[in-house]
């Protein structure tokens, strides 16, 4: 199964603020892309656009499934899932009820054991019957991770996925992503070390522009950090 996303000259404007300016790139099947950039650089906007949650002001986003251009949003969404710092789960349902609801909604067949094994994977089986609102921030993020992984998506859209997690929790989820999950992701993070470690492609955003789109093999970590910290030349910003 191949799933590719082609971004062509994407602009996104909110009122008079440019969130994204002329972004063109391709997300190929299995690409593990880390996106970094300062606050307001357009990283989360790009995830929202890719997730089909919002439309670009200008430009086009083209989705290709097994080499065929897909237009139907339902079909496209079947291949993607999103995890952000908002947990996207209902506060008044238990962890198990939340996962069961979203499994049904996403058309994933899971019995009681299926839900339990997913909770166990993120270390939350014991909290399965706890109301989501009663879970700590870190527990909520782990359960939310289990939700995002429900349909074994071809592309995961991860917006600060480890926020609120302790070191053990972060390692656990990172391990699942790196060893068990076989597909690609777009990972937005402010942790340069973690982002570099988890990627095979690196996108650096500055002022709404995709300033650098590099293969990880093209640069070492020091060069990566200096690229992230460098300012864009004046003529590019104009």
């Amino acid at each position, binding site marked *: 199964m191949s799933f590719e996303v082609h971004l062509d000259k994407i602009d996104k404007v909110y009122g008079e603020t440019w969130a994204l300016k002329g972004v063109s790139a391709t997300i190929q099947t299995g690409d593990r892309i880390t996106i970094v950039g300062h606050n307001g650089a357009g990283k989360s906007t790009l995830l929202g656009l890719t997730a*089909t949650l919002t439309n670009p002001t200008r430009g086009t986003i083209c989705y290709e499934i097994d080499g065929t251009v897909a237009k139907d949003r339902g079909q496209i969404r079947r291949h993607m899932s999103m995890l952000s710092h908002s947990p996207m789960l*209902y506060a008044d349902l238990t962890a198990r009820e939340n996962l069961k609801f979203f499994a049904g909604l996403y058309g994933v067949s899971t019995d009681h054991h299926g839900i339990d094994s997913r909770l166990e994977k993120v270390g939350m089986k014991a909290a399965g019957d706890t109301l989501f609102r009663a879970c700590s921030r870190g527990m909520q993020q782990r359960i939310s991770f289990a939700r995002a992984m429900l349909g074994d998506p071809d592309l995961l859209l991860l917006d600060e996925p480890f926020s609120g997690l302790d070191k053990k929790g972060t390692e656990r989820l990172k391990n699942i992503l790196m060893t068990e999950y076989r597909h690609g992701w777009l990972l937005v993070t402010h942790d340069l070390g973690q982002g570099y470690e988890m990627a095979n492609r690196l996108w650096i955003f500055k002022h709404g522009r995709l300033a650098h789109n590099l293969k990880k093999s093209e640069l070492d970590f020091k060069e990566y950090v200096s690229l992230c910290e460098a300012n864009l030349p004046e003529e590019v910003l104009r």
Partner: protein
Amino acid sequence: MPNLILLMLSKDLRRELRSKEVFLSSFLFSLILLCIFYYAATSSSVAFEKLPNTALWICIAFSGTIGLHRTHQAELQNACYKALMMAPRDPGLLFLAKFAANATLLTIMSLLLLPLIALFFNLDLGSNLLKMIPGLVLGIAGFVAIGTLTVVISANTRISDILFPIIHLPLVVPVLIAGVNCTQKAMLGEISWTGIQILCVLNLVFLSLGFMTYAYLLEE
């Protein structure tokens, strides 16, 4: 389709049974309205026999508006609506499922209100209750169909709690007029077929509109 409705309904009912947010706010508000109506009626020369029906629909209109806003706020909390939008489902079907869940909650609340109204206004509902059901259910369905749409329109603004009733209440006037007509006749032992027909048409129009436009309204 039925699975999706059942899924949404069981989720919303379970949430409501736990939090009682919608029920408490809507039902208590209705109770206060009924008290105001009762004391206003007893201290004036208003025709007492016409008040139960008026009180019923005013309670539905105002507490229903509060309830619809609360249920939508629950979707916005924790950005749950984004996970709903990401579902590989036709957004039109999501609208119908959400409509069914909202309509069920408001119907339950209204049915619980009926004995209270009978008590406050000394009304004998027994013989005419069945005749009231079609007008009441269709009226609530129309009210909720419009509300499920308008609550999403107003949600993307900073003043959603003020904007929602401002958009919603004028739009539901035709539904309320037809609903009031149906239940008033039912209380007198008659059935208003014209009212029922109007309500069926209004339901069809707004459910179709919601089915076709929900995808666009959900997008930011």
